[in-house]
Structures are given as structure tokens and as C-alpha cells.
């Protein structure tokens, strides 16, 4: 997210250009999080708009300007989780959209890693919702166990249990796709 505390303060003070810059510098990351949780571009776009409405409404009261990205991630996660609970019985088409690194080290290394990243993204996408949500919030977006529990409405203990299972599932999936992830080979190589 391309957002500084000064920019957040200027937006809080009602500077229209700062608000536009704040949105332009953050919406892609917010949309990506929504897409990882909801797995459908239309739903993710809808959740992103709802998240920004909430952000605009409460920005003046927001005090920890340095933590804007985390705050924004929590807002959109809450929106997504509320929507997902409503839609739990509905079949939603799952996106297979590729994620890209906006600033790859170089084209060659990006090409080499692309297969791995796409597999990993796919493995996360295929996790059951209860596991996917904890992995996305805790492991990808770095929320604490408590913050993750708050967003999901579960205890930190339940977060740990789900994380344990989700991470091992991912590891098994990756080991199936990439032999070097199986472990033993690297020990003896």
C-alpha cells in the first residue's frame, strides 16, 4: 500500500486530493484481499466499495494514522466475512485470476517463480473457507491471532487450531506439486 501517515492526516483534514491519493494508493491491495477471501471478482469489487464507504465515514475518528493499511484490511475483511456468512449456501463462481508482483526483481526471476506463486495461490483458493480465511488474514496479511479471531468471530485458540490444519494442508499440496517441498529430498541432496 502506497500510503503515508501524512497522507492519512491530510485526508482526515478534508484535503480532497489527499483522499483521492489515499484511495488510489490503497484500493488495489484492498481489492486483492477481498478477492482472496471471496474468490469472486464481482463480490470482491462490491466488498471493496462498501469498505471505502465505511473508511470515509470513520476516517476522522481514526487515530493510529501509521496503521492505516492494517485498519483498512480489517474493514474489508469484516465486510467480506459478513457477506460470506450471508452467502454460505450459495454457489459462487470461483475466480482463477492470477496475482502479479507489481515490482518484480527482474523479468526472468519473475517468470521462474510465476508457476510456484500460481500454484500457491491456487492451493490457498482451494482451502475450505474456515481454513482459507485464517491463512489469508494471519499468514498473508500479518494480522495477530487476536485480530484474526476478532474478524472471524472465533477465539485465538480456534485460530491456532485452524492455522495448524491449514498450513499442513498447504504444505502437503505444495509437496504434491513440487518435489523439493516434500522435505526428505532436500535433507539428502
Amino acid at each position, binding site marked *: 500500500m502506497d500510503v503515508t501517515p501524512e497522507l492519512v492526516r491530510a485526508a482526515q483534514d478534508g484535503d480532497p486530493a489527499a*483522499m483521492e491519493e489515499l484511495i488510489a494508493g490503497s484500493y488495489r491491495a484492498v481489492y486483492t484481499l477481498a478477492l482472496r477471501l471471496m474468490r469472486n471478482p464481482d463480490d470482491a469489487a462490491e466488498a471493496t466499495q462498501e469498505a471505502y464507504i465505511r473508511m470515509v465515514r470513520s476516517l476522522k475518528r481514526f487515530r493510529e494514522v501509521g496503521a492505516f493499511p492494517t485498519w483498512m484490511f480489517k474493514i474489508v475483511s469484516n465486510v467480506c466475512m459478513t457477506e460470506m456468512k450471508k452467502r454460505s449456501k450459495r454457489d459462487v463462481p470461483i475466480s482463477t485470476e492470477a496475482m502479479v508482483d507489481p515490482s518484480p526483481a527482474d523479468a526472468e526471476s519473475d517468470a521462474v517463480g510465476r508457476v510456484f506463486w500460481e500454484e500457491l495461490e491456487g492451493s490457498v483458493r482451494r482451502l475450505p473457507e474456515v481454513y482459507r480465511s485464517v491463512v489469508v488474514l494471519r499468514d498473508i496479511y500479518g494480522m495477530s491471532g487476536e485480530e484474526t479471531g476478532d474478524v472471524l468471530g472465533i477465539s485465538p485458540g480456534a485460530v491456532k487450531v485452524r492455522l495448524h490444519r491449514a498450513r499442513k494442508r498447504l504444505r502437503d499440496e505444495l509437496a504434491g506439486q513440487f518435489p523439493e517441498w516434500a522435505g526428505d529430498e532436500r535433507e539428502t541432496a
Partner: protein
Amino acid sequence: MSYCEEIQRTLWTEGPDAVPASHVDSCDICRQEARRAGDVLAALSGMRARMATPPTGLEPALLELASRARRGRAREVVTHPKFLKGAAVGAAAAAAAATAAFGLIVARRHARPEVA
């Protein structure tokens, strides 16, 4: 649960930094498991930098939202089709209510007894 099982459980819930290094260094199985857990966590953390390409209309819609928000009308700018559908249903309901109210007023006027 054996000590190694306990260590491995902690590895997958808390991460490799949360277990005693002295044990991991001296136990081949736990060391291997620590490496696996560390690899998975590092890969997941790396996903944060990779982003999706949002729909082309999303940024303009959000900027319009900010512009209207300054006038306290943020809700009006939600442009997603589902929101528009909701707005259309709301407008239709309001129109139906207005028509019903008008009909009630007319009916009451006609029902009022003539006063000589």
C-alpha cells in the same frame, strides 16, 4: 503426546521461532519439520506483495465515492450492479408507497359525507 510431537505442533501453530532452538538443532526430524513450516510461512507472507488487477471501473467509482463523501452522500455513488439493483427496488417501493398514500387520500375525500 511426545516431546517431539509437541514441538512439531508448536512449529505449525506458532512458527519455527516459537520452539527451543536447542532441541531443533539436535533432532533431525524436528529440524526438518521446522524447515518445512518456515518455508510455508515464508511463501504465504510473500503472497502479500502479489496483487490482483481490479476491474477497470473500480478506481473511478471509489474516487467518485470520495468526492461525494465530502458532501455527505457517499452511499449514492455505489455503482456496482447489485447496489444499483437494490436502489431500483427501493425506488420502486417508494413510488408504490406514494401511489398508495395518494389513493388513500383521494378515497377518503370521496367518502367524506357532503356537508350542506
